[in-house]
């Protein structure tokens, strides 16, 4: 189970301010803190804090300041592919591109870029019309992305299919459909593509966010989830991820397994 730390995102006030003021400290603080929490990768997203025409420069800057304090690989998160490419150019370790929907134009932009920079891809099970309601259509989009990986020569384990979870308080019917999608995506190819979720989305604006995140993550891992963009500093959530590794017999049990899961 891979943890992609979600905290370096311009949607958070401290990161938004840091981006506007070119102040590396809050970004570096969260890079280190998430690594200590148990993150394997750091998601990097400028959010709306930076005007579109400055994003290329902003991603290059963010990647550089993070790499000054952390060795973790990065997940470059933007809809602006020029900004992602600027970041990929300075990444010291193979990164992951977040994200590419099942749209031909975007596939043609993203997949060759992934090959060029030896990067992974998060593929979204949606197109211009939006997110499907059921598992069947999500899996159909996943199949298009799997076919694209095959066509462009992206190794299947470098493709992370994201079946897109929505907040349970407004779109409750999606939660079981996403679990079913995870199960089916794992059967699309051999080796199978990997899977990822923007986990915190499931609990948006609910009072019991942490409980919902933890419960849904355990259910999703059992259904085939390999990675989550999530709160790497919710210790109980990271403990759930570690415990799932044990209960699915993916890692050999030892009394100190929680500590070992966090060791890098």
């Amino acid at each position, binding site marked *: 189970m891979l943890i992609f730390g979600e905290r370096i995102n311009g949607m958070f006030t401290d990161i938004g301010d840091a981006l506007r003021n070119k102040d590396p400290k809050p970004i570096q603080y969260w890079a280190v803190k998430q690594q200590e929490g148990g993150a394997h990768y750091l998601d990097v997203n400028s959010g709306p804090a930076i005007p579109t025409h400055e994003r290329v420069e902003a991603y290059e800057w963010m990647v550089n300041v993070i790499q000054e304090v952390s060795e973790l690989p990065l997940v470059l998160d933007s809809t602006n592919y020029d900004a992602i490419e600027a970041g990929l150019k300075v990444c010291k370790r193979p990164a992951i591109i977040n994200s590419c929907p099942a749209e031909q134009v975007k596939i043609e932009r993203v997949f060759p870029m992934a090959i060029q920079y030896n990067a992974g891809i998060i593929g979204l099970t949606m197109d211009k019309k939006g997110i499907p309601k059921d598992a069947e259509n999500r899996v159909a989009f996943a199949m298009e992305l799997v076919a694209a990986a095959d066509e462009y020569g992206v190794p299947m384990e470098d493709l992370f299919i994201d079946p897109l979870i929505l907040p349970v308080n407004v779109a409750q019917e999606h939660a079981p459909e996403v679990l079913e999608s995870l199960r089916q995506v794992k059967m699309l190819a051999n080796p199978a593509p990997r899977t990822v979720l923007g986990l915190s989305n499931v609990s948006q604006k609910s009072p019991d966010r942490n409980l919902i995140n933890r419960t849904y993550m355990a259910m999703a891992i059992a259904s085939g989830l390999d990675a989550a963009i999530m709160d790497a500093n919710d210790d109980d959530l990271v403990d759930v991820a570690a415990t799932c590794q044990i209960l699915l017999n993916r*890692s*050999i*049990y*030892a*009394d*100190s397994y929680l*500590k*070992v899961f966090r*060791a890098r």
Partner: protein
Amino acid sequence: MSVTLVKEKYSSKVGEVVLGATAEQGGTRTSTITVGGDSALPFLQFEGETKNRPVIAMEVTDIVPTWSDTIKNQIGDVISDPAAWAKKCVDDFGADLVYLKLIGAAPDGENRSAEDCARIVKDVLAAVGVPLIVEGCDDSEKNNEIMAVIAEAATGENLLIGIAEQDNYKSIAAAAMVHKHTLIARSPLDINICKQLNILIHEMGLPLNKIIIDPTVAGLGFGIEYVYSIMERARLGALANDKMLSMPIICTVGHEANRCKEAYASEEEFPGWGDLEDRSVLWEAVTASGVLQVGASILVMRNPAAVSVVKKNISDMIGK
């Protein structure tokens, strides 16, 4: 129709551990031995590298052991002189290294002092140039006492010292750390305790490349299948990047095989079992070859004739 070989791909490999230290490295050994480093299951060279060949440590005891005559007769008079015995193991029997077991330290036996034990270790170090493994007796309290003194007396030699166990590891791990030795971590045929003990020792500050796993073995016919499955899980864990199970493995096959009645009972007693000389050699050699197949890096053996058979087996499996 052509057949394509299905090959496993592994993400990691077994850790490498160096035993012994030459003069430049702070010791007095004429050569060192490196074990581990494999990147596939044992001897599957088409899937990965068998980096360092498995080695044989021959067992020497500080007082004359109660072993069967079939073994003692091969060793001869030197059996009462640990240094001369060790030299014979290396020069005549082809041992890669020597395993010195200080049974004379047992409080209910000779009750040798720590200083006496340290002197014997120094004598053996002086007699041979190969790296040395040192284990105490079966009394853990006495062992803590003697191993602290031995570790200090042999500072810098990078001995492989044992044993650390889950309920008694701190004192010997500290001795290994302070005096720059490598440590044997023994678990009672239990993969979970094996991993936990490695974590605990590593938390004390001993690097992972200073630990050797002793998973405890059993002789042929006495649970070797169970040993095999435990060792296989450890090896697959190491290859899947479980750092806390990635250490090379030592197996005390001589001790275990020769506890089996089949290795010492006479033909007169069991006519159907055949000639004892052959049987005792085979019992130890087959036990050793069994654990070799699942990743033993260091075989601790007793019977010189069995050592000769297993050395050939290793060469055949390695292909050189």
